């Protein structure tokens, strides 16, 4: 045991002497949470649009005012001919052009029908589609006002309740993701690097020749990172509670335990990476390219899994982060207890055991 404590003390020396890494280690979660909280959103608003108004009458002005008053759009410019549409799109700023037909007002009064063309720059299909949808709903509202004298047959009014995130803050959606990524980064990448570092420097050999057991070496190396991960998790949770007013509806104890579990899952992945890589460079590349990107993109952190093609939905099941994000969203936003997330928890435990088993096997092969 005493050997073990000495070992852990040495690991902490390594970590605390490396001021730059330490700064990144603690600066990263704060910077990311701040960015996601204050700057980044997957909503679409403030889109620059251009107007090509061929009729210029009271009705079109009214509609334009209605549209530009919404938070979705910023009226950028008026354009005078068809050709200009192409030009503004190619410059890249304007995402949509609204074209009002000739005699818009007259047509609406005489023929009860008028046409607006919504031309969108669909290189970004999501923005294009959303703009089209939002514009439509603004037009429909306007229509209802115009038609208010006409008796309608009947009307169904949906009352929508947005649960778990009534103000639709995107930070609520991103906090669980950021926390997952940070825990993964600290645990998997840092451990794999710090183990391969000893291999590269030759100290691993010295440790293997000493009476300290290989599993003690490994546990001694990963232990400090559990500690750092937990501190990071606490910082993230505190920031989201106090700065972004995010509720933690579930139990803090459960949240803590699940975070420790996921940390151990990531650590075991880190150990596995270190058994298959000889240099720090390889370990880093594998952790970053092989681990981080799939974790960010396939876990449901930013992109909804249910919209992905079926094969990717299947693949997403082997990403530990996916399950942890479900757990975090459950505890933090939905306030569920373990009975709702036991399945995800069991999956994470299973994955951890699998990674550990595989590392032990790999390790033994190396020794023979």
């Amino acid at each position, binding site marked *: 045991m005493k050997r073990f404590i000495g070992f852990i003390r040495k690991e902490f020396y390594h970590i605390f002497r490396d001021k730059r890494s330490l700064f990144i280690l603690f600066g990263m979660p704060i910077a990311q949470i701040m960015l996601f909280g204050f700057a980044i959103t997957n909503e679409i608003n403030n889109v620059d649009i251009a107007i090509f108004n061929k009729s210029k009458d009271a009705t079109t002005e009214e509609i334009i005012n209605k549209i530009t008053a919404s938070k979705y759009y910023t009226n950028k410019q008026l354009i005078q001919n068809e050709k200009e549409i192409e030009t503004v799109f190619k410059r890249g700023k304007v995402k949509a052009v609204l074209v009002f037909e000739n005699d818009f007002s007259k047509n609406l009064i005489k023929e009860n029908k008028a046409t607006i063309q919504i031309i969108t720059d669909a290189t970004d299909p999501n923005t294009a589609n959303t703009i089209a949808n939002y514009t439509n709903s603004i037009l429909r509202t306007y229509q209802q006002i115009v038609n208010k004298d006409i008796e309608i047959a*009947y009307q*169904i009014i949906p009352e929508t309740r947005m649960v778990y995130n009534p103000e639709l803050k995107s930070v609520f959606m991103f906090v669980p993701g950021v926390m997952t990524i940070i825990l993964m980064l600290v645990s998997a990448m840092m451990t794999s690097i710090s183990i391969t570092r000893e291999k590269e420097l030759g100290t691993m050999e010295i440790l293997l020749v000493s009476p300290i057991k290989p599993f003690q070496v490994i546990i001694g190396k990963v232990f400090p990172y559990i500690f750092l991960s937990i501190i990071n998790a606490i910082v993230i949770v505190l920031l989201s509670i106090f700065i972004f007013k995010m509720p933690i509806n579930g139990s803090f104890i459960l949240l803590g335990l699940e975070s420790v579990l996921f940390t151990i899952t990531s650590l075991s992945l880190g150990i596995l990476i270190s058994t298959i890589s000889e240099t720090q460079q390889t370990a880093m590349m594998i952790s970053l390219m092989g681990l981080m990107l799939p974790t960010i993109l396939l876990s449901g952190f930013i992109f909804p899994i249910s919209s992905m093609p079926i094969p990717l939905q299947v693949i997403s099941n082997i990403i530990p982060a996916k399950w942890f994000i479900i757990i975090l969203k459950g505890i933090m936003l939905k306030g569920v207890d373990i009975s709702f997330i036991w399945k995800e928890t069991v999956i994470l435990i299973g994955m951890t055991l699998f990674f550990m088993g595989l590392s032990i096997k790999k390790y033994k092969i190396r020794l023979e």
Partner: protein
Amino acid sequence: MLPIIFVLPLLQLVILSNAATFEVKNIKFSYLDNDRTSFSRALIDKFEASEYFNVLAHFNSEKEASAAMLKGNIDVILEIPQYFERDLLKEKKTNLSVTINAIDGAAAGVENVYINQIVQSFNKNATSELAMINGVTAIPKTIDSIPSFWYNETLNYKTYMVPGILVLLVTMITLFLSGMNIVREKEIGTLEQINVTPIKKYQFIIGKLFPFWIIGFGLLTIGLILGKVIFDVPMVGSILLIYFYTGIFLLVILGMGFFISNFTETQQQAMFIAWFFVVIFILMSGLFTPIESMPMWAQQLTELNPIKYFVEVMRMVMLKGSSLSDILPQLLKTLAYAIVMNGLAVWSYRKTS
């Protein structure tokens, strides 16, 4: 190492381009029909017919429904009240309660729009049916909107993501490799050996960075080919323009990698710092989330982000066929960035050795 540099990123390009989509479809839909009349059935049929909704379950009690929502099995609950049909016929007005899981706020907003569209078209159909029966009294005024989606009529998300993810991979690989490479020599001690040889500093720097410049082009080329072959991403603009811009952009990244390696002592540090900046640059680049939606101060900050320009240029040239004059602002800013970054790198290299 070579498979990691080439195979892994390109594999990711292929896989992740499929994953990165904000489209909202396959919405996990469920309903609670307290009325069980032909009207309520007709409304539900509308949802079943929609391509956006997957009607997964119907519940008999609110409790069941909210438990399923908590478990994450469903995202939308439509609750049709009792006397739905009776109220509609008698009072011409009724409510409908919709519950949406809003953790993903943006998706929830879109889901809400889809639900409203379906309900409104249900209203509209009923209105016109009634008008037919009663004889025409007053025709409501309608404004037809005709959406047209330029450059990407089918709203294929992959053509948007492939150029973006390619940018991400090219940037990450070249930055990490260049950042780590010189530190590696420092760590192993070979840098000292090189410093005592008669090689000039600029020769050393160019010799060190040139291979990564080539690797960057290699990645870009293979990525473009894969994009064309697998995803059929159009190349509307000039491919030469893309290469020309990339050449300048890579100088920014290599300069940055070199700068980082001057200020770090171990590969781990270099990697960490590179990673820190890459993550921030990527998040602020408009690659995944729209820049226009950011607050003003954040939008101004993105002006300092080279990756933003690369993402913009790739998408503009490849998908819209923007010309040199269209991308001139981005090009000039990138060039200025390259000069400043490499100047700093050379200056700091002199200082440290």
